[in-house]
């Protein structure tokens, strides 16, 4: 029990694409909810998703009344010569009393630091800061308080980084979709559709996606290219190029990554011991049923670890991509 008592309670940072999902996350036990505005200033600029200014104000009030925080993701890269909507997004996040803004672009971070010193700044995973030197630069130069680590580090590497960047906090992904590319640098979606998560806030935009049902199963196309075929009973995945099946040596297989979801519930004790400040759940594009299920599972998991109890056996298979789960780079089990 003494060991459990020494552990620091990490914040659970949960996604919300809509006001209803924000309420679901808070009600399910989220410490923080992260959201985005309804434009290309955030990396989930999907049709019908995200918050108007009025909705964000109401969402922040709902969360604060229940002791939860709201973080605003403004984590795409402003277009050259057209930074206005990004600047406005930062100004509105500060005006609405968001608890922090999650930023990626170094120019926007400088702008926010200079014009809105009261706004707490977190460094987005899109900035791909993965070593103490890079993290300390953002902290010392712009007052960044927390960094969301890219999904390329092992638990041991995270544990080694934390004492070297203190008091800067680290936040790591614990569940959800995975990107195999260098965060904020991937051009695959842009190559096929002309739009990318980095500049437009959308990977594989829905307007470029087509599904066709046949007797053999379902075919998914992106930008007019067939990128995958799933047999009738085979679980499907997102229509992204990195999770496409490609034919090499007459055999179709996944070259970059199989459709799978990150799930770290089994290694939560290790991540807590590594000194991580916040656990992030991916999935602002998912429905509120997903948000509620995952938040409840990780709330139970974190609370169990801190209480020195065994991890709860919670099955999240039904909401994972491709029906598969991995601990990803945290364990690098493929090595």
């Amino acid at each position, binding site marked *: 029990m003494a060991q459990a008592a020494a552990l620091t309670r990490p914040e659970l940072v949960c996604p919300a*694409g809509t006001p209803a999902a924000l309420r679901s996350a808070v009600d399910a036990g989220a410490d923080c909810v992260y959201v985005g505005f309804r434009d290309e200033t955030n990396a989930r600029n999907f049709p019908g998703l995200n918050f108007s200014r009025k909705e964000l104000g109401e969402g922040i009030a709902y969360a604060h009344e229940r002791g939860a925080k709201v973080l605003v993701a403004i984590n795409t890269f402003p277009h050259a010569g057209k930074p206005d909507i990004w600047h406005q997004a930062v100004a509105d996040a500060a005006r609405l009393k968001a608890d922090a803004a999650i930023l990626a672009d170094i120019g926007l971070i400088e702008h926010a630091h200079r014009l809105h010193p009261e706004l707490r700044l977190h460094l987005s995973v899109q900035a791909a800061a993965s070593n103490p030197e890079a993290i300390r630069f953002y902290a010392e130069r712009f007052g960044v308080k927390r960094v969301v680590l890219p999904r390329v580090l092992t638990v041991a590497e995270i544990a080694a980084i934390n004492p070297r960047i203190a008091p800067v906090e680290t936040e790591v992904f614990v569940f959800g979709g995975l990107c195999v590319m260098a965060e904020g640098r991937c051009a695959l979606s842009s190559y096929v559709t002309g739009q990318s998560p980095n500049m437009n806030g959308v990977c594989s935009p829905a307007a470029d996606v087509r599904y066709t049902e046949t007797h053999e199963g379902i075919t998914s196309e992106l930008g007019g290219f067939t990128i995958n075929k799933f047999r009738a009973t085979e679980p*499907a995945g997102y229509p992204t190029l990195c999770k496409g099946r490609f034919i090499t040596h007459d055999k179709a297989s996944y070259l970059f990554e199989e459709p799978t979801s990150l799930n770290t519930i089994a290694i939560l004790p290790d991540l807590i011991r590594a000194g991580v400040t916040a656990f992030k759940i991916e999935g602002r594009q998912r429905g509120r049923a997903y948000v509620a299920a995952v938040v409840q599972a990780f709330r139970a998991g974190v609370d169990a670890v801190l209480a020195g109890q065994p991890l709860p056996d919670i099955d999240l298979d039904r909401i994972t991509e491709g*029906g598969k789960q991995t601990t990803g780079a945290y364990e690098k089990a493929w090595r």
Partner: protein
Amino acid sequence: MSQSPVRAPARPVAPPFSPVLLLGLALRPLNPTLLQPVFDTMLRMIRRRHPDILERMADYGDKAVCIDPVDLPFVILLEPNPDEPRLTVRREVDPAEIAATIRGPLEMLIALAEGKVDGDALFFSRRLVIEGDTEVVVALRNAIDGAGIDLIEDISVELGPLARPFRGLAGATLGLIDRMKADFETLRSSLIAPAVKDADSQGARIAQLEGEIKQLRKAARRGGAE
């Protein structure tokens, strides 16, 4: 956009054996237009209680979506024009008049509308079929999920003083449906029991043969090595 007829998709979604399926069979002789007042009332209620749905769909006002409950003998055509939305029940729709189709069992579509299940998860598990313009489907899914629809609560509020008896009636009806579903599952299990038994014994036989083949291959390899 898919050009296949709406009620004859390339890979029909098999409706689950459920009370809804029986209801669908019973409704087959009924002219769907007789149900139209129900959908008109539902649309008025949604516009009053959840105006944000049409607001989130504003960019897709001219894109009609066919909602196809596979266990019922009709489809629902949603035209999300913010100024003049329409929810029309039809026996079938002309593919040329729709941008996209969402297809699945009624119970699942209701659960999706109420945010009780995740749309991506249904798609991953292949229980939900999407055809046509994916963008309008994603927008509709997000708009509906974000509205926080609770059908029984929404109808109760609309009924004013009748809300309380309605809630009681709805609760009793849902309880009855749950019991019927359990009975249907028992019936289904009973009907397919002989087939399951055959499949189990075939599976066991296949496993035995695979074991024998493995042993033979091992023996052959040993023989080759010697």
